[in-house]
């Protein structure tokens, strides 16, 4: 492994880490603003122009707050759980091509940290490991709400892993590769080549499962404020809670990148316009996460399980079978 490659990779890792940590903060700003506008409020207005520096204020508060380890918690696991959430969220980013390759001072930059040929499998696997954050955090805390939340998160994540995996299997069969770059090449012909036209059912299923994987509102029961306080985050404070938060928002951003890359043509032919297109699609999916939070109620845990095992999974299997038959004949 030559040194230039190593340096390049480290720089890319640092850039991705910095950008998405900052984006997670700015994501909270967008979330608060958009939710406020949809509810005829103004949202944060006092810190900085239009409340823009609210993110910085929140960050300072989180960083300087006392790091409380409550009595009766299992200390070591309690401390490591938020790190797992944040770390797995960022690890998943390694296989995502954020932009098409571009020239910088005569040097070709590939904005993907590792173009592994099992990209999607890797992303799904790492996101599956992300389950351990809420699970361990909830179980290490010494209260019932956290425990309930841990049980729910285990149930939800494992169930919806199935839907995610099965729904994405049909496109994978068509493309014949697990690399997101290959997915992008497959759809690079333009609007008509997008996988969403040939696999609309898989697209919808994956989108629905993405809400469960990120724990966003219709499936927000992992930390449902009105019944189990803040779930696994109840006993966390300061930066440990902040890590959970960063992990959650980074996950939202990465999923918002993955959906267009898989189904909506990604960055297309790799031109500047295509790159802008990918960012626009990503923004839409991120906005949709916030939009549904303003519009939709949460479902009950039993309804969520019902939806997964009795509706989404059978549809996904049928979709795979039909895709197989169409490809065979």
């Amino acid at each position, binding site marked *: 492994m030559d040194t230039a490659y190593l340096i390049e990779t480290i720089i890319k890792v640092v850039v991705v880490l910095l950008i998405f940590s900052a984006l997670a903060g700015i994501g909270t700003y967008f979330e608060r603003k958009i939710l406020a*506008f949809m509810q005829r409020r103004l949202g944060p207005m006092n810190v900085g122009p239009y409340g823009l520096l609210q993110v910085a204020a929140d960050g300072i508060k989180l960083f300087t707050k006392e790091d409380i380890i409550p009595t009766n918690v299992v200390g070591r696991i309690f401390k490591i759980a938020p790190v797992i959430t944040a770390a797995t969220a960022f690890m998943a980013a390694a296989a995502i091509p954020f932009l098409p390759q571009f020239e910088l001072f005569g040097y070709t930059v590939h904005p993907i940290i590792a173009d592994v040929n099992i990209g999607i499998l890797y992303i799904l696997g790492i996101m599956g490991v992300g389950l351990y954050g809420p699970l361990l955090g909830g179980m290490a805390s010494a209260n019932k709400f956290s425990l309930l939340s841990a049980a729910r998160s285990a149930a939800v994540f494992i169930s919806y892993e199935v839907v995610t995996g099965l729904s994405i299997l049909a496109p994978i069969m068509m493309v014949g590769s697990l690399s997101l770059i290959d997915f992008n090449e497959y759809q690079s012909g333009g609007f008509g080549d997008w996988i969403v036209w040939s696999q609309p059912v898989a697209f919808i299923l994956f989108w629905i499962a993405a809400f469960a994987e990120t724990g966003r509102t219709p499936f927000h029961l992992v930390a449902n404020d009105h019944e189990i306080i803040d779930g696994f985050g109840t006993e966390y404070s300061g930066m440990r809670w902040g890590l959970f938060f960063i992990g959650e928002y980074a996950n939202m951003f990465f999923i918002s990148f993955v959906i267009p890359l898989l189904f909506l043509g990604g960055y297309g032919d790799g031109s500047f316009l295509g790159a802008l297109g990918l960012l626009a699609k990503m923004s839409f999916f991120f906005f949709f996460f916030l939009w549904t939070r303003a519009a939709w109620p949460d479902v009950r845990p039993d309804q969520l399980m019902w939806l997964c095992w009795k*509706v989404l999974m059978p549809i996904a299997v049928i979709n795979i079978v039909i895709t197989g038959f169409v490809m065979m004949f």
Partner: protein
Amino acid sequence: MKNTEVFNNRNVSENGYYLVDIADYPTDGWGKFKRVVKRTFRGELFVGLWVVLREMIKFDIHTIQYPQEKMPIGPRYRAVHEMKRLWESDAERCIGCGLCEKICISNCIKMDTRIDEHSRKEVSEYTINLGRCIFCGYCAEVCPELAITHGGEYEQASEQREHFVDYSYMLTPLDKMKAGTQVEFEGFGSITPHEDERVKKTPLAY
């Protein structure tokens, strides 16, 4: 007959109330399946999405940015007390009768009077403990001279509670009086609008 604003007629059967049409729950599997399919494709989720997006686009914001903006309050609002002056002479209206002190149900008014150099009764000390006051308005109602009234000022900040309550704080300042900007209280105890027409001569005939 859809007017639900008729509050004095409490007969629900006549007031436009009606039972919401709730269909029976399906009991068999096929019925449940049909219900799921119907609910899935009726598009209700998109109605919800459209409603919030519409509100966002309309941008009809209802927030009041409180310290900078304030809600208008009614003229009858019973906030912190004010002591008024006479329009004619700028003298204090309070005659030191002590009725407000007497009627105050939370015992928060304390006053002291003395005879001044013109042999008139004068208020020498007057305090209202606003920490005790329940803003019932009895003092303003009982005052025969319309001297103590409520004002519209509802926010105070100080290092000492005692700063709020002294007489000079409540008294209309003289420069405001000179400018003629003293506002009469329209609420509890004030004169009704057509009072002059309603006043009758004292019947001295008998």
